[in-house]
């Protein structure tokens, strides 16, 4: 485990100190450039060594998986790809179809050992039933619980196994008569979300990525003044809902980002804010039973996988995933958020240490590979 230690200040090797400065750059400036390069290199060297130190052992099973992708396109396609690519690490054969294809027909022809449906909101239950009638096991992994439980409640009972990323939904599906229900959080796809060395013009103090749900707007309205004084970047849609939108608008980019771009965004920031969606937020919510959300969102893993300091609000189960103040930092009010941003911008070594520990925990425990390994153990035994 990484121990508390002092990161030494750079002491550049001055092999050229006897020479006079050439090329219009003073010796002092050149040393400053060297020192800055050293700082960046030192940090990413640490991250890379940490990544390389994690043993990669994957048990590939002699099974054929038919994977049914969400069929929803962006922004779900990266999730489809991450899970499909990860399944390939664990099964000797993986066939991939979309929820919009005649999956039952394909399954009857291919006779896979299991059909794994991701999300399943676009997948007809008649197809599910037809596959089961063929004697082929079919499982679903719900990725948006609890926000669509009005719909998923009608889907879940058709499957042999139900996996949900939200722990609070396990008793819910069990109550609907589902026999095999498992809590399986989403994770991170480290091929995309990993530390990098962003160009200097992409480096910022604070970043937030996400849509402006009304609960978030209410929160951000209280810290607009503060964020305005900082090197802040907010990326996402609907932010014109902010009370002081015009003042903050130079710091807002209104669009969706590809995962690679999101990763670069996280990488460029010293602190990345995570704010979970409220389980009862009125925008696009199909959770009329108001099932509470206690599990961290996938973004939690993605931010930490980029080795940046994550400042997150607290979901009840968060400490099971990351130790607060050790691997992640939390806030529960606008005031606390501001205090912690101030603290970690002023305490770089502590910031880095927490970021490194967060990366370490993520790669050891919160990758899609770890999740799929768990799923395989449930479906096929250890």
């Amino acid at each position, binding site marked *: 485990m990484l121990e508390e230690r002092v990161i030494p200040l750079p002491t550049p090797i001055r092999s050229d100190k006897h020479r006079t400065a050439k090329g219009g750059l003073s010796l002092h400036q050149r040393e400053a450039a060297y020192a800055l390069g050293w700082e960046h290199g030192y940090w990413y060297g640490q991250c*890379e060594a940490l990544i390389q*130190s994690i043993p990669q052992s994957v048990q590939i099973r002699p099974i054929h998986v038919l994977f049914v992708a969400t069929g929803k396109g962006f922004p779900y396609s990266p999730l489809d790809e991450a899970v499909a690519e990860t399944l390939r690490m664990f099964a000797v054969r993986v066939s991939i179809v979309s929820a919009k294809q005649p999956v039952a027909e394909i399954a009857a022809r291919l006779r896979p050992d299991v059909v794994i449906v991701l999300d399943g909101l676009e997948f007809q239950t008649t197809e599910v039933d037809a596959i089961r009638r063929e004697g082929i096991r079919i499982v679903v992994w719900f990725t948006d619980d609890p926000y669509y439980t009005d719909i998923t409640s009608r889907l879940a009972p058709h499957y042999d196994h139900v996996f949900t990323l939200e722990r609070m939904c396990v008793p819910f599906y069990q109550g609907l008569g589902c026999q095999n229900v498992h809590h399986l959080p989403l994770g991170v796809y480290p091929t995309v979300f990993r530390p990098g060395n962003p160009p200097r013009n992409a480096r910022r103090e604070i970043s937030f990525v996400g849509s402006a749900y009304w609960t978030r707007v209410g929160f951000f309205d209280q810290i607009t003044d503060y964020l305005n004084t900082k090197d802040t970047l907010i990326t996402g849609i609907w932010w014109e809902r902010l009370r002081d939108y015009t003042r903050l608008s130079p710091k807002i980019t209104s669009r969706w980002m590809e995962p690679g771009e999101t990763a670069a965004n996280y990488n460029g920031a010293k602190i990345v804010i995570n704010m979970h969606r409220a389980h009862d937020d009125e925008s696009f919510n199909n959770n009329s039973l108001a099932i509470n959300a206690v599990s961290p969102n996938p973004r939690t893993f993605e931010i930490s996988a980029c080795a940046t300091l994550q400042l997150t609000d607290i979901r009840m189960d968060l400490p099971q995933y990351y130790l607060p103040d050790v691997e992640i930092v939390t806030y529960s009010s606008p005031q606390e958020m501001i205090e912690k941003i101030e603290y970690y911008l002023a305490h770089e070594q502590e910031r880095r240490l927490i970021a490194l520990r967060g990366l370490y925990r993520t790669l050891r425990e919160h990758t899609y590979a770890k999740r799929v390994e768990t799923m395989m153990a449930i479906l096929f035994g250890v």
Partner: protein
Amino acid sequence: MSWIKRPRAALAANSHERGLANGYRVGWRDGACEAAVQLANPPAPTVYNLRVLFVPQGFQAIDNGIIQALRQSVRELHVVEAVRMAEQALLVRPDFVLVLNGLHVFPEDHLAQADQIRAAGIRTIIWFVDDPYVTDDTVIVAPHYDTILTHELSTIPLYGLIGCKDVHYMPLGADIEVFKPMRVGSSHMSDVCFIGQGFWNRVHMFDAIAQQLAGLNVFIAGGLWDRLKEYRLLKPFIRHGWLPIEESALYYNGARIVINMHRTTEAGSDNKNSYRYPGRSINPRTYEIAACGTMQLTDVREDLGAYYQPGLELETYGSAVELADKIRYYLANEEARRLIAIRGLIRTRREHTYLSRMPRLMEILGYANSL
């Protein structure tokens, strides 16, 4: 005057970029090595309830590596010179006497001393680390010991043939007190580094790639290098004579690529191997180079894959052309080069230190009585 400002500004920007890039490269290695050293440590020592007498060979890196490891792994360790090994053994009455190699500088009465220890009922063990290059000598030494350890796979049947009953393969490792990542000054820096004697196979290989090396910053250290056909071309790179291991570690650290080239096993002027046993096992340098967090380009010995994954933790070559190509490739691909270096460092610190060899050594010797 703007015409004069523009090029100066461009020069300044250029110089700034260079400074950043240089800093980044050094910083990356410093950060990565530091993290690797923190994260990848040998397992905690197991302590055995044994009294051991160790006789070093005079191979500093191996002797000290084993001494440090034994010191942490046995209840009582005595290190004695070869001239007094029998006298001390009879005095100390250890569970066993472990002799490293027993060649070269060992006294003339070495074998008589070994017999004397054995006659006193004390177990004698010799660990050969020069096999198969000196089998003419080791076959004379081996029958005087109860247990034979060798780092070389190919010579195991040889000792059986001459009547030794208890013969085992026992690999070497790295002394990570000496061979460790360090930041070095520019005088120790190079693109390509090779340290070792100019045995003929090595000389032929360097002659073959001399033209390409001539344009690089190269460091070669060792004896016999005046054998080179291309001596005049490579002369500026050569430092003649023996290099102390602490110096070697500095040069390994400062190099972008360190070449490892096993000696030929041919009998003849460089070797005492008239039985022509092949070399199937890697040399200790393999571990030592990797332990410095530097990328290694090595020729392939049969057991290499058991210790390092080629292409991931080090790189290999099978010919002069491949060696030259890979030098060119890895000097141009900094990212690939440094990842291999860091993986090699991590693997070495986790699995190939002398301390991590100890449980295996004790198991081979039949001791399970850990404290």
